[in-house]
């Protein structure tokens, strides 16, 4: 009886420990390196004084004692530089804010101009895919709103995908990052055509293949729809090339495209009806 009670208690403890371990795994596995800056700061607080001490010792041993001769002068200079640095940092922050505002306004003006030629119906994402191997979303507009199969779907940032099935009140959208998606696109600056396919690699990444051998593909180039294929209209932003992988056989080279739309945060979409 006592043993049974003990094993039951042990079982409950095991379940609790497993749940805690799972939460820790989830949290740790989703931390991005940028989010570690605060931890870096805390660690730095402990490590940097030690490192300074060691450097000080090393300098002393090496006979580098000129540092001590006019330490007061250096201290004053350091204070002045720190002050100047904080002033510059503040100016930089102000400039960054102005720059961000400027780019948002520019983007808005561009998008407004770009999409005025299309008739669009706005909708909300009401369901996202539940598996790890496909990227289908459900939106809250359907036949009643004039939505039909194969209509392109965009968002404020760029291309989202196309409608693959509709009910009266909802529509299923195959996003461009779905593994079975394949889009004909054009590099905005050079007008070279390529094919962008969905991949399992990352949520908002496409793999560009069939790059012409004479094409110059550069990191940072933007990619837009070519208008070929009959589903997507020409000139809708897809994303930016982030990596070009050259292979021994030139026709096999490929590039990574980071989509303009962040599919993890996608909430509102526009369906182009005309």
């Amino acid at each position: 009886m006592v043993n049974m009670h003990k094993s039951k208690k042990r079982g409950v403890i095991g379940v609790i420990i497993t749940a805690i371990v799972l939460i820790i795994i989830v949290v740790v596995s989703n931390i991005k390196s940028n989010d570690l800056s605060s931890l870096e700061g805390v660690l730095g607080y402990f490590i940097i004084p030690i490192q300074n001490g060691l450097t000080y010792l090393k300098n002393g041993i090496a006979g580098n004692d000129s540092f001590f001769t006019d330490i007061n002068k250096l201290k004053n200079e350091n204070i002045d530089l720190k002050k100047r640095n904080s002033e510059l940092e503040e100016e930089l922050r102000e400039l960054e804010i102005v720059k961000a505002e400027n780019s948002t306004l520019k983007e808005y003006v561009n998008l407004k101009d770009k999409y005025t030629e299309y008739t669009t119906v706005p909708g909300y994402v009401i369901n996202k895919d539940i598996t790890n191997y496909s990227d289908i979303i459900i939106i809250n507009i359907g036949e009643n709103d004039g939505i039909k199969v194969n209509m392109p779907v965009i968002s404020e940032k760029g291309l989202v995908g196309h409608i693959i099935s509709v009910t009266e009140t909802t529509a299923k959208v195959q996003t461009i990052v779905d593994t079975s998606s394949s889009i004909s696109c054009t590099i905005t600056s050079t007008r070279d055509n390529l094919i962008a396919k969905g991949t399992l690699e990352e949520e908002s990444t496409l793999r560009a293949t069939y790059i012409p051998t004479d094409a110059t593909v550069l990191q940072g180039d933007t990619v837009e729809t070519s208008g070929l294929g009959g589903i997507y209209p020409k000139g809708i932003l897809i994303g930016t090339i982030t990596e070009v992988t050259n292979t021994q056989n030139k026709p096999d080279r490929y590039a990574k495209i980071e989509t303009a739309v962040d599919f993890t945060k996608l909430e509102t979409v526009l369906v182009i009806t005309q």
Partner: protein
Amino acid sequence: MKKVLSIVLIFIIFIIIFLLQANFFNWFTIAGVKPNLFIILALFIGLFAGQRIGTIYGVVLGIFLDVILGKSIGASTVMLGLIGFLGGYLDKNFSKDSRLTVMLMVAGATAVYEIGSYIFNVAQFSINIEILNFSKILAIEVAFNVILTIIAYPLMQRAGYVLEDIFKGQKVLTRYF
């Protein structure tokens, strides 16, 4: 009456799992990889309610998933049906009283389901085969499903024996005596 109630209850569990999968597990992920609770559910039904019920449930739940979120009807229907069938087969050959055995069953079922679904996808939509990325996601998904099984096992076992009682009647374990 009890059978009808349990059938309704399983559907309610399915809806809860669907909502969990579509909302909670969309952000509660391991390195961006979600678990697949439907595999655990289909296996659980097969294990406790029997091969026939498991297969039927697997197929019905699969059709639901294919209709709601699939690109076409087929992959989930066939594969969840297979998992339900597999559950019944495993029940005949292994003991489900051991947590470790059930964990291994879940790991195997997850691998079978996802590999099968992936092959379906490759054949149907001629997608690029990405063995490395697929294996990486599959390994995390298997681990995630196993961890969730460890947590849910006491509840699964208790509910399972109630289900077994309803669908199979009182069973004397003649195999062990």
